[in-house]
């Protein structure tokens, strides 16, 4: 920590201060210094860029750019701010991608949504928005929908012409070297989901991959600005349907921090249980989907069968199976009127999982053909993980000890017994095994949390009918908060900005792990064959919902 501060103080800073136990918050005065600062930070081990988040202040004519830089191994993080001008022509800053490559997609995202030009970015292009986008940038505060629509209608011919041009140019012969073909892998491919990979192939061999994303872009960050603080949970939980509860925990924590409220221990344990339920539900799909990519649906069906029991638990609590909206700022949404019955339901689901575990291990996890396919391909080393900032299960499969639940304990994780779950090799098969191990860990955590709640209720410390929610103020004070949770697929970071006496978020940056994981496909897939695309792609556990947001 002190080392980071020392480095930062060498530069011209407005302030350098501590923020939470693991963060240093600093504001840079001169935007030209940014590359030097990042370089200096990289030398002392801050090698990963979590995300880049611009905040638009039209009245003050400035755009504030927040860099979230992380040192994964030593759990030290830097929150670096810098102001730039807002006018489109002058809205530019040096790119940090040449120094920290994990910033690549995040800078592109800021460029496409806010129009911040990153000078020196290796391939600056429109990213979430389509390549033929006309008009103002969508996340700016002065974005006008009517004008935008008019623009599109005026330019519709040009847009379609560009499309046909691209359509023509996708095959070339290289004489005796073979021929290069562009295969469009998606967005309607049976195994792709709403993403398009432009795969440059020579026969069956992959030469280059370019992900094209944005097919399910819902502009959730902008949407959140139009809703009140409670209503935002509905936007936030729709990041990805698979792990539904954890994004809401992340958002609720940020709001609580700004409001300065502490939630009750009961609500904390409830958040643990609900979060782990969400993780289990998500991991069960990942687990089965991994085999689905190799043409074996049996395991997916078995996993979905178990998943139904966990969804029953969520339904019992919140009334909804997928989009539960069950966690809000101030605690959890509903009281537990009959906690014993609900715990019995959880036990039933756990029992179901335990009953299929031996079969799963024997038939699928030790499957020789799966081993032949997945072992020793797509290996990530520790450096790969840190430089590209791969997160969650993917990082832990490569034996990198990172887990927000332990690095920066939130909810009640600090009071529960848990340890980093890791695998040794970091190959494709390990990315399957890690998921299996994590489900078991989640179930263990759920059991611990249930026990704690039961003890608390018996000792009279907790009241499940009243303790679930702390009253939150209707209007929030001015503030800024960063909140992180360990999501099913990795670190989720939310950056919330509020104005004085506001009823809705001024800016909510959602950062989800699939962005970096999708970027990694560019490096992972070349030199493999077409048959490996679904397998390697499936092993990254990418969800397009949180990729596009």
């Amino acid at each position: 920590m002190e080392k980071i501060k020392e480095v930062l103080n060498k530069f011209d800073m407005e302030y350098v201060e501590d923020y939470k136990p693991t963060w240093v918050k600093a504001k840079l005065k001169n935007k030209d210094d940014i590359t030097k600062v990042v370089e200096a930070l990289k030398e002392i081990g801050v090698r990963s860029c979590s995300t880049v988040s611009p905040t638009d202040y039209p009245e003050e004519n400035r755009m504030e750019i927040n860099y979230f830089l992380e040192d994964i191994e030593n759990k030290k993080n830097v929150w670096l701010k810098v102001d730039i001008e807002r006018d489109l022509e002058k809205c530019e800053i040096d790119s940090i991608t040449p120094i920290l490559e994990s910033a690549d997609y995040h800078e592109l995202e800021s460029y496409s949504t806010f129009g911040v030009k990153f000078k020196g970015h290796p391939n600056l292009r429109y990213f979430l928005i389509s390549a033929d986008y006309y008009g103002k940038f969508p996340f700016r505060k002065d974005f006008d929908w009517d004008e935008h629509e008019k623009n599109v209608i005026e330019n519709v011919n040009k847009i379609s012409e560009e499309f046909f041009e691209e359509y023509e140019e996708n095959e070339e012969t290289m004489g005796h070297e073979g021929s290069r073909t562009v295969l469009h892998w998606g967005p309607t491919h049976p195994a792709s989901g709403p993403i398009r990979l432009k795969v440059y192939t020579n026969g069956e061999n992959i030469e280059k991959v370019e992900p094209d994303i944005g097919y399910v872009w819902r502009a959730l960050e902008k949407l959140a600005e139009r809703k009140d603080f409670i209503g935002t949970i509905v936007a936030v939980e729709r990041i990805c349907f698979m792990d539904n509860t954890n994004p809401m925990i992340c958002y609720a924590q940020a709001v609580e921090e700004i409001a300065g409220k502490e939630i009750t221990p009961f609500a904390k344990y409830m958040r643990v249980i609900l979060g782990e339920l969400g993780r289990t539900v998500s991991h069960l799909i990942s687990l089965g989907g991994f085999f689905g990519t190799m043409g074996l649906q049996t395991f997916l069906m078995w996993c979905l069968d178990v998943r139904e029991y966990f969804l029953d638990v969520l339904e019992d609590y919140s009334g909804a199976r997928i989009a539960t909206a069950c966690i809000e700022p101030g605690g959890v949404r509903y009281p537990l009127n009959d906690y014993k019955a609900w715990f019995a339901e959880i036990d039933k689901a756990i029992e179901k999982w335990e009953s299929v575990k031996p079969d799963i291990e024997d038939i699928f996890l030790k499957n020789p053909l799966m081993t032949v396919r997945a072992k020793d391909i797509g290996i990530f080393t520790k450096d790969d993980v840190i430089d590209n900032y791969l997160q969650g299960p993917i990082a832990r499969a490569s034996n990198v000890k990172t887990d927000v639940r332990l690095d920066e304990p939130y909810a009640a994780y600090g009071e529960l017994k848990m340890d980093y779950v890791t695998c040794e090799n970091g190959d494709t098969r390990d990315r399957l095994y890690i998921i299996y191990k994590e489900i078991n860990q989640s179930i263990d955590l759920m059991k611990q949390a249930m026990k704690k709640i039961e003890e608390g209720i018996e000792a009279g410390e907790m009241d499940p009918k009243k303790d679930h929610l702390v009253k939150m103020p209707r209007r929030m004070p001015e503030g800024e908060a960063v909140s992180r949770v360990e999501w099913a697929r990795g670190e989720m970071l939310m950056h919330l900005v509020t104005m004085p006496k506001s009823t809705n978020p001024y800016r909510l940056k959602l950062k989800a792990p699939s962005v970096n994981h999708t970027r990694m496909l560019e490096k992972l897939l070349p030199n493999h064959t077409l048959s490996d695309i679904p397998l390697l792609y499936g092993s990254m556990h990418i969800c397009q919902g949180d990729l596009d947001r």
Partner: protein
Amino acid sequence: MNIWEILFYIFIFPGLTFLLLWTFFVFYFSRKALAYIHKRVGPHYNGPAGSLQTVWDIFKLLTKESITPKSADPYLFNIIPIITPLVAALPVILIPWTPIINHGHAILDTNYGVLGLVVLIGVEPFLLFLTGFGSHNKYSFLGGMRILAQMISMEAPFFLAALSPALLFGTMNLYDIMYSNTWLTTLILLPGAIIFIIAMLGILEQPPFNIPDAEQEIVYGFYTEYAGTNYVLLKFAEFTEILVVSAAAVTLFFGGYRGIFFDSFWWLFFKIVILAIIIVAIRASNPRLRLDQMLKFTWSWLTPLAILNLVWITFAKIYILGV
């Protein structure tokens, strides 16, 4: 053989009606068996236990428009689905189906039965390659190329394994092979049978060798552009091939329609269903191999083993049967 007999063979048994019924049955059977392993219900509403579901499915497909893509070669694209089921159904005349017809012999009772079977089964993949070639679709073309690669490597062990009973009994007549088979020779032929069944999975594009029509990789390969009637015809060809190849396996290695207490078509059918159960079980528990892994497996393991098997058969013929 009078004209009525010939018409009966062509249209009723073992011709069109039988093959159609078989297609309905095996479609339904694989769905239901797979559903059982998947912990699902499978077809449920149409007919008793959903048995009519496949019939409706096939008639639904027949009513659909047969689309010929603009870029495809229209003649090649549309003629192959007609030729393929015909070629797939041809080997039917070489197999002795039941003791009732033709005194238990095959309809075409020839001394080159094994050879005929092997050749007619081997022609099929080239037609499927042409479907991929005629579609003018990148994924279909890749599927076609994969079929060729797979067939060239799978047919070597397939033929070598099919030769082992012919070598053991000294005849290529399927009727003679069937009647020469005893419990002892079945045991001697067992390694050959296992190689034959593994190679059969490759020939029939069943998992783990469903590489040419891998949906997650190349979008069903050569099937991609086909719809409606053409698709039904291709599927019909596929299921007919499954029937022919598994009937060939049973006739060559497990005594065809001969059974305990009595000889009947139902014994043949029973043995085919057991084979089908094995195929479905493998399908339900094993992921797909990669193309290069399949090539490595066939050329460095399966083909050498098939040759070793011939050595073993020769040995057994001289020292165990003492012929």
